[in-house]
């Protein structure tokens, strides 16, 4: 039985905020094909957290978050600056920034661990995420950042959308795309740093990308995609928090990421239109339609060799030019009333079938003329 005590309500609330934020901003990371950005930002944030702690020697939630943001932001802004000024490609600089910042952060963490202060414990929770140590204070900080970020998205919705879809065109309309991008990336940094405490540096990128990727499968509208992505993120975070509170020693971060991965897999497989299962079914039915049309066409050509309507053609002469089994398709054609069978393995076009073939011919000619 799950007991909604102080800790659990805190964890659930915090998780919901993390899921909401990473869900919404993951949509932008995904649509801009910068899914790796989340990974870089979260790793880059670590030295910020460690430095702030080294300076203050206390775990002040707002200060630590701000430190994480500053470092994450610095890491994010270095990348385009280097790409624009040199011939280094984005994937290279992403790898470099991620490793350098993270390495520096780890080094600082080991320095902190050797300090005589007893207060240092718990900073490693930023590596793998542990929501159970979260305080109401932490949730307040997260809520404030969430509120600001969501308001910003609502205000700049159309600007962010056009800058994501067609940056050059947006610029030609006079929108300050560079500033919009910077604002958007700063908000992504906020979303990630807010989630670090619960999900951790290592797994945070999954929280950013998976809800958005899952949401994309279900809709062709960006508005709905963002809503769904937020819902998926929240759902996964909350259930991850509940799961880890009911199973001892299961950390929140990995639990949440497992659940969002499940959402993602289900969406990839079963979503209508874009899902793999759907595609498979559609390909099968296309294949069927094409085979049927081809069989009608072949019957039509057989018909040309004889007096119209006088003659049943042997099914074997169709089988001879088809590699696969065609009985099923011939049955369908007969059911449609386009062909008729004789008892002795014969088949011919009906007048409806003939009309069908001629319509197809006319359609094709029309397309060629266009």
């Amino acid at each position: 039985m799950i007991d909604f005590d102080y800790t659990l309500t805190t964890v659930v609330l915090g998780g919901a905020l993390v899921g909401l934020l990473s869900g919404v901003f993951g949509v932008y990371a995904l649509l801009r094909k910068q899914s790796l950005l989340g990974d870089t930002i979260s790793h880059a944030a670590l030295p910020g957290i460690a430095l702030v702690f080294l300076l203050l020697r206390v775990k002040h939630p707002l200060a630590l978050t701000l430190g994480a943001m500053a470092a994450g932001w610095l890491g994010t802004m270095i990348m385009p600056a280097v790409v624009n000024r040199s011939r280094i490609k984005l994937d290279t600089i992403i790898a470099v920034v991620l490793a350098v910042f993270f390495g520096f952060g780890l080094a600082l963490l080991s320095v902190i661990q050797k300090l005589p202060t007893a207060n240092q414990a718990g900073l490693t929770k930023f590596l793998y995420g542990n929501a159970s140590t979260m305080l109401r204070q932490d949730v307040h900080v997260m809520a404030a950042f969430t509120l600001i970020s969501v308001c910003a998205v609502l205000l700049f919705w159309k600007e962010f959308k056009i800058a994501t879809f067609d940056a050059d065109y947006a610029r030609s309309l006079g929108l300050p795309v560079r500033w919009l991008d910077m604002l958007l990336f700063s908000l992504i940094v906020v979303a990630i740093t807010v989630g670090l405490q619960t999900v951790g540096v290592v797994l945070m990128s999954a929280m950013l990308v998976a809800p958005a990727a899952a949401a994309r499968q279900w809709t062709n509208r960006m508005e709905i995609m963002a809503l769904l992505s937020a819902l998926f993120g929240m759902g996964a975070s909350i259930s991850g928090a509940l799961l880890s509170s009911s199973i001892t020693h299961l950390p929140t971060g990995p639990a949440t990421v497992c659940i969002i991965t499940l959402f993602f897999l289900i969406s990839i497989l079963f979503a209508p239109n874009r899902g793999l299962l759907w595609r498979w079914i559609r390909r099968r039915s296309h294949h069927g339609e094409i085979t049927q049309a081809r069989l009608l066409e072949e019957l039509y050509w057989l018909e040309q060799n004889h007096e119209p309507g006088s003659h049943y053609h042997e099914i074997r002469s169709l089988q001879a030019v088809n590699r696969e089994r065609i009985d099923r398709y011939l049955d369908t054609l007969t059911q449609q009333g386009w062909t008729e069978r004789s008892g002795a393995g014969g088949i011919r076009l009906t007048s409806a079938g003939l009309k069908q073939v001629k319509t197809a011919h006319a359609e094709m000619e029309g397309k060629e003329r266009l």
Partner: protein
Amino acid sequence: MTNPSSSSPLPLDVTDLTVAYHEKPVLWDVDCVVPEGTLLAIVGPNGAGKSTFIKASLGLIPTAAGRIKIFGKPYASQRKRVGYVPQRESVDWDFPTHALDVVTMGRYGHLGWFMRPGKTEREMAMDALEKVGMAEFAQRQISQLSGGQQQRVFLARALVQDADLYFMDEPFSGVDAATERSIIQLLQELRFKGKTVIVVHHDLQTLKEYFDWCMLLNVRRIALGPVDEVLTKENLHRAYGGRAAFLRS
């Protein structure tokens, strides 16, 4: 075409435009003056700087030197009078949106900050889709449109900008012959309404039939003027080198 008595400033007046990329000139010292109501084609070999010319005119890329005036003023102050059709390949057509929504983006510049497109904008977008023969595809996800249909969506988006000067970067790429004809008809209508349309074009064969003016470009400006005067053997040779023999025998 041009009314000599009118004192209205030229739609496009480019002087000494130079664009360089890694110390290599892409456009070098290009002058281009286009009178009002002209349908102008920019032609030249690959890498001649055709798209760069359009992007520089729109202030999308930094210029090394030169001056660009749109209706006598810098671009920044004339944005609402300029429409743009970027290359179709420049965007991800799997973006989660439909045709009508993309066309509505043409009004974003007029809407201003924080304002959402409403009924008026959607009606304008519907009208524009109607004009390019795409009304029935308004709600279609853009990845499910053919290349020619996507091109027409971009064209409709530029039309709702209700501009006086249009820049179009290869609006005929990936378009079948019928669509090409309907697009050129639309451009000619714009020209008759006194609009100026500047188009990056590839097909020298149709140049004379489609366009009034032509700018032959190969990093430097080879020639500019009425199509007949520009398309001389000598000019083509200067722009295309030996390959011109294949292009116009």
